[in-house]
């Protein structure tokens, strides 16, 4: 990579933007088809009523809230990786940051649709917005769902700007190489960026401030999502561990999604010289740490529950571990810990393929984890007469599948419009780091050569 000139780098990274292959069209059409099917399923649900889903008393939240928590969790990829690595000046982050930030924006947008999808009367969703109504009524800010509203909107706006701002210089790059209508669009998007030192300094300062701001927002978002559960007196929901547990789980699933996205992009866009094995190594190590942390949280929570031996909680405990949810529970533990641990801990296995497989299982495992937090607890509340079950219907399954397809589709479209690796950041890294290292060794003799 160091042997490449700036022009070569630009060419390599902008190449995916031109031309669409038949394979691309095929997959885009397939994914779009499933996404449209999901939309139809949702409209059918709005028309007929939530009865077309598998929800029932007492399991009033099922697949939709599972998806909500899952996608919001996945969205922690970008922020934490991008912001934390920026602030820590980790040099290897440069090709990775935009991939991560894109995951955040799309996952967050998808996740934020689920509170609307799961409503009984979604056309009244605007009741959640604080506006002066004729009834003199405001939303109830005691409700964790309102905290969700503020937190997710803040996080969405922050993530979108965190993504868009560093894209401006790259838009300028594409603008200068484009022609015709493409040139017009990219000129508009580039905002007339010329690349003066003033513009660079302001952009970098803005990115720095936002990296600092977006980390506490990300932590607060998933804490607040966890409090949707922890604030209700439901056995094994009402636990103080939920906020850190969910944040850790979110980072865990986010890193896994990032590794998967990078592995696919590397293969499909021929970025072998930019997304190097070392990136997957480093992210793989982070994933290993998060896997261990996840295991620690689950262990701590279950040990305390078991020791407490409170009857209502033990009912949920046993049904998850030994009862009807046991297959899903043990699948989750395998996917989140048993399988990834050797793949990530053994250096020989911590290859691109190894980390990608581990990440794939982690994504599945984390989806199962969200499901297993919600449904077993709701189906075994305090009165045994009202214990119940849950089974999703085709509507919920279609909508779930649709969101996964939408995510991939959005990513595919994005990769054709914007370079997935931040070109200017990559180029800047090649001379910034050697200079910084030189400064560190000989602070008195600073000479740009």
């Amino acid at each position, binding site marked *: 990579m160091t042997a490449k000139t700036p022009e070569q780098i630009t060419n390599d990274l902008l190449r995916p933007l031109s031309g669409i292959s038949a394979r691309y069209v095929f997959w885009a059409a397939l994914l779009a088809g499933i996404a449209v099917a999901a939309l139809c399923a949702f409209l059918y649900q709005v028309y*007929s*009523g*939530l*009865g077309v889903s598998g*929800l*029932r*008393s*007492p399991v*009033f*939240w099922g697949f939709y809230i599972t998806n909500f928590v899952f996608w919001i969790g996945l969205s922690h990829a970008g922020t934490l990786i991008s912001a934390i690595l920026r602030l820590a000046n980790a040099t290897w982050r440069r090709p990775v940051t935009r991939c991560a930030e894109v995951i955040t924006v799309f996952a967050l947008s998808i996740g934020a649709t689920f*509170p609307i999808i*799961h*409503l*009984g*009367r*979604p056309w*009244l*969703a605007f*009741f*959640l917005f604080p506006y002066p109504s004729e009834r003199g*009524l405001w*939303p*109830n800010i*005691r*409700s*964790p*769902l*309102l905290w969700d*509203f503020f937190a997710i909107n803040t996080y969405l706006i922050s993530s979108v700007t965190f993504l868009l701002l560093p894209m401006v210089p790259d838009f300028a790059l594409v603008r200068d190489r484009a022609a015709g209508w493409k040139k017009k669009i990219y000129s508009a998007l580039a905002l007339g960026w010329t690349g003066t030192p003033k513009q660079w300094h302001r952009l970098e300062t803005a990115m720095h401030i936002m990296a600092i701001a977006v980390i506490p927002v990300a932590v607060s978002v998933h804490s607040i999502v966890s409090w*949707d559960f922890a*604030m*209700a*007196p*439901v056995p094994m929901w009402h636990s103080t561990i939920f906020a850190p547990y969910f944040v850790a789980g979110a980072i865990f699933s986010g890193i896994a999604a990032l590794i998967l996205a990078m592995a696919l992009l590397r293969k499909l866009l021929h970025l072998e010289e930019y997304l190097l094995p070392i990136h997957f190594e480093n992210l793989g190590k982070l994933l290993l740490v998060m896997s261990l942390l996840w295991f620690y949280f689950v262990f701590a929570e279950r040990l305390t529950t078991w020791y407490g031996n409170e009857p209502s909680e033990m009912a949920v405990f046993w049904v998850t571990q030994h009862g009807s949810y046991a297959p899903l529970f043990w699948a989750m533990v395998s996917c989140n810990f048993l399988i990834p641990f050797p793949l990530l801990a053994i250096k020989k296995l911590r290859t691109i393929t190894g980390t990608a497989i581990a990440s794939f299982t982690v994504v599945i495992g984390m989806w199962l984890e969200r499901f297993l937090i919600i449904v077993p607890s*709701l189906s075994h*509340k*305090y*009165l*045994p*007469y*009202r214990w*119940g079950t849950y089974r999703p219907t085709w509507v919920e399954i279609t909508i779930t599948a649709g969101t996964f397809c939408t995510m991939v589709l959005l990513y595919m479209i994005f990769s054709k419009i914007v370079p997935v690796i931040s070109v200017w950041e990559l180029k800047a890294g090649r001379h910034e780091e050697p200079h910084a290292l030189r400064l560190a060794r000989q602070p008195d003799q600073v000479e740009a050569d």
Partner: protein
Amino acid sequence: MAHQWGMAIDLDRCNGCEACVVACHAENNISTVGEEQAALSRAKHWIRVERYYEGEFPDVRVKFTPVLCQQCDAAPCEPVCPTFASYHTSEGLNGQVYNRCIGTRYCANACPYVVRYFNFYNPIWEKPLQLQLNPDVSVREEGVMEKCTFCVQRIKAREIQAAAEKRELRDGEIQPACVQSCPTRAMVFGDLGDPESEVSRLARSSRATKLLGELGTRPKVNYLPRDSWHDSENA
């Protein structure tokens, strides 16, 4: 002082006939959901009679517990509703405002008694059954949560009448549909704020206990079990 409506249910008298369930459906325009939906636990019985069996034949004992909204003073369903559809009235009732409900179903999850019911579909009354609808009670559409209101329409009607007649309400004058229809008079409704009312008297009984009282919900329904909860074998 404002009334604080409450109930006392004598479980020694309850024989599980479920007349209260039927009366509630009739009074409050609760539709039936059909066999398939009922199998999916989507029936909307605002009051339900829980039936527990103890022992082996021929020494079987059956316990009946009518469970309805406990109108908790520290209701877990109230802080979690984002639109204030579930709120606390000045007379101690947990009110459900159908117009404000957008159907997040958080209240149903938070309710430990599972007494909140969701309209998964639009309710249907086959002709000519729609003629029996009670004009004093609204019909809820799909997507809206509903639950026992202590027949607030009857409470309000009596309060208005008493005010018009410039007199106080008499104890026992207001009877929700379930209380009115109980053949064994197992259920008593009244003002817990009036120490002389029958419900207050029963609430002070040594047999009186609260369902899931240890959760801190401060429910207003006092159960008088056949024997003390502590004496009976725990399941």
